[in-house]
């Protein structure tokens, strides 16, 4: 199934020298290696446009290699790491380091995202042009949003000259300061400080206005609130180049579902109220949301074994994304299979402007194969990630990834 062309048939996929030669009935070539995918869905390789690989700087939690292996096991053949490493990916040297490390050690394609500002400090623009030249495909100060609207405006203008999207982690840091979970009945009940939905909404509103002024391509990372989804839909209706991604946990888990004070449910944006979860799901269905991304955020065990308010934000996501999406979106009939694949492939590839996400002849041979009905149970202790922070540990899924092919090579199979 290939959303880019709308192709949907039982067919062979012929690959040679890392390139797709064709898709059709009874394709073969003498001496070719066979991969029997009968009973499976064969799709373009999945693209996760929002991950944290922790390298350089935090290799105890994840490396480019371990993160790429977790990606492959989740069916992702392309991943885009955010720049909040140490040092921050805010110049071409760091970008080149990541590209080079990935070339040597990663089992999937790695498309770095550069910082918007130096050190992601929100003040001075980073060396955006040279990072893009070195391989960066987008810019973002993920986790440390640009609070100064003027700086954001300049970043959008500058990014437009290089035709890369500006990705914002939308969070007004003054409104969210000190918060540990979504502000609502649950935070009040548990005595935890809240992160209000409006801390996301005011930034989405600001950014959309700036995107209109600057003509930039603007992308909302991990959208989680009802009003933000509505505003993105509004921006699209005005014809702006505004896109959005959401994560599986934001359409699968509401604040009322969390295990109290369990840091595997602590992330930014936080798991929001039921109405937000429903609105995000609806946004996935109606097209306001363009991509599913994981925000895979490994943290070492001891960092997550603390008082809730002390634990860092973020959870793993690569290996469970498809299972969760099948459970919440496909099996209940909210979306069809082609749309689901689109959210994992064409959607994110188009936003990042990378030549991936299709099975068209001549395309790089990145292929994801998955099952719709095979039952499997996620055991986080067997994760390829170096970290163990997942709320989905022990969960049984119906359907999930079976094999990942990158540039014609099978890099993982179940």
């Amino acid at each position, binding site marked *: 199934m290939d959303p880019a062309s709308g192709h949907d048939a039982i067919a062979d996929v012929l690959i040679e020298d890392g390139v797709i030669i064709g898709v059709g009935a009874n394709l073969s070539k003498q001496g070719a290696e066979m991969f029997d995918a009968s009973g499976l869905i064969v799709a373009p390789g999945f693209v996760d446009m929002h991950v944290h690989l922790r390298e350089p700087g935090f290799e105890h939690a994840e490396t480019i290699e371990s993160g790429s292996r977790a990606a492959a096991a989740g069916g992702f053949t392309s991943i885009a790491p955010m720049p909040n490493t140490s040092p921050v990916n805010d110049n071409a040297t760091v970008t080149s380091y990541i590209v080079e490390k990935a070339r040597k050690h990663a089992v999937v394609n790695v498309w770095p995202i550069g910082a918007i500002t130096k050190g992601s400090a929100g003040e001075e623009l980073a060396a955006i042009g040279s990072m893009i030249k070195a391989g960066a495909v987008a810019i973002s100060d993920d986790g440390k949003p640009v609070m100064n609207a003027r700086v954001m405006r300049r970043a959008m203008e500058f990014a437009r000259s290089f035709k890369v999207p500006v990705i914002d982690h939308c969070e007004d840091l003054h409104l969210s300061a000190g918060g540990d979970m979504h502000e*609502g*009945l649950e935070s*009040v*009940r548990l*005595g*935890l400080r809240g992160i209000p939905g409006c801390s996301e909404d005011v930034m989405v509103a600001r950014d959309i206005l700036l995107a209109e002024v600057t003509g930039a391509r603007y992308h909302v990372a991990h959208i989680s609130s009802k009003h933000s989804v509505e505003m993105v839909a509004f921006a699209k209706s005005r014809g702006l180049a505004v896109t959005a991604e959401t994560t599986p946990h934001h359409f699968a888990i509401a604040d009322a579902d969390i295990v109290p*004070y369990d840091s595997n449910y602590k992330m930014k944006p936080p798991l929001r109220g039921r109405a937000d979860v429903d609105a995000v799901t609806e946004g996935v269905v109606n097209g306001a949301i363009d991509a599913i991304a994981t925000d895979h955020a490994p943290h070492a065990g001891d960092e997550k*074994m603390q*008082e809730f*308010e002390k634990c860092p934000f973020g959870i793993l996501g690569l290996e469970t994304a498809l299972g969760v999406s099948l459970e919440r979106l496909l099996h209940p009939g909210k979306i069809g299979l082609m749309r689901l694949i689109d959210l994992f492939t064409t959607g994110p590839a188009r936003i990042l402007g990378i030549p991936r996400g299709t099975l068209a002849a001549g395309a790089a041979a990145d292929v994801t194969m998955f099952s719709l009905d095979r039952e499997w149970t996620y055991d986080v202790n067997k994760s390829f990630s170096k970290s163990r922070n997942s709320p989905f540990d022990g969960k049984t899924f119906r359907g999930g990834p079976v094999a990942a092919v990158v540039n014609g090579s099978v890099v993982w199979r179940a």
Partner: protein
Amino acid sequence: MKSGLLGIEDLNRDEIQAILDRARDFQPKKGEGFRKTDLLCGRMVVNLFFEASTRTRTSFEIAAKCLGADAVSINVQASSATKGESLVDTLNTLAAMRPDAIIMRHAASGAPHFLQRHLETPIVNAGDGTHEHPTQALLDARTILDRGASLEKLRVAIIGDIAHSRVARSDAYLLSKYGADIVLCGPASLLPPELKDIAPGITLTTNLDEAIRDADVIMMLRVQLERQHESAFPASEYFQFYGLRLEHLRLAKPDVIVMHPGPINRGREISSEVADSQRSVILNQVENGIAVRMAVLERVLGGRATH
């Protein structure tokens, strides 16, 4: 694993009533002190306070000693926690010394709940962040009952920094289980609207007079400046709009009682005249703190059958 006491929200009314009834057995007779018993002889409890507290810690210590248990209090300032040891490691180390229970206060909401998942030793929550303070709610209920009132249909006004008050939450959970009318009152910035839904029977108001009108019980909360992460109200105006003064009491039922978990800030949330008035039961609360904590420790440590 024995069960400790983490919060009121998880208890049912029968469990609460059993503790309140048992606490009455431990109350001193008029003019006497607390009777010493040997109900928990040979048992050991550790008082682990990560947050400054004189009265609660002392109260637990006396309660343990009145039951014949050994009580060790740990000064956290001088402990490993200041040397960078994690909370889990600190607790595991203590648990390895085989106490029968750990009484714990911590500034982080949910800290005892998080630890109990990793620890066999029962934990008694002596206050966790802005979440719960279960023994305070029990001693408050015991104090109300001592005035001959029943908790059903009682109108209770809780006034102050509700958002950051573990006392307000525990009291609201407890009173709600008895069907009381609970009015939570404070400036809107300290009174999130969701509070109305944490338990049945709760109404909210930002008007002090409205809260006090026809009240059977007025519970004042300490204005907790140390929990103010920001300026949520102009401090200079607090007493003017939310401080309890004698003239307010006229709005309440004639036999209204005034409670306060202490320590009180005279002139900040309560006037001296009210604090020292006949309507104040603040010192009865302190006394009941020991009786209630004896009942809690006996329940948690599984003492001998009642006499």
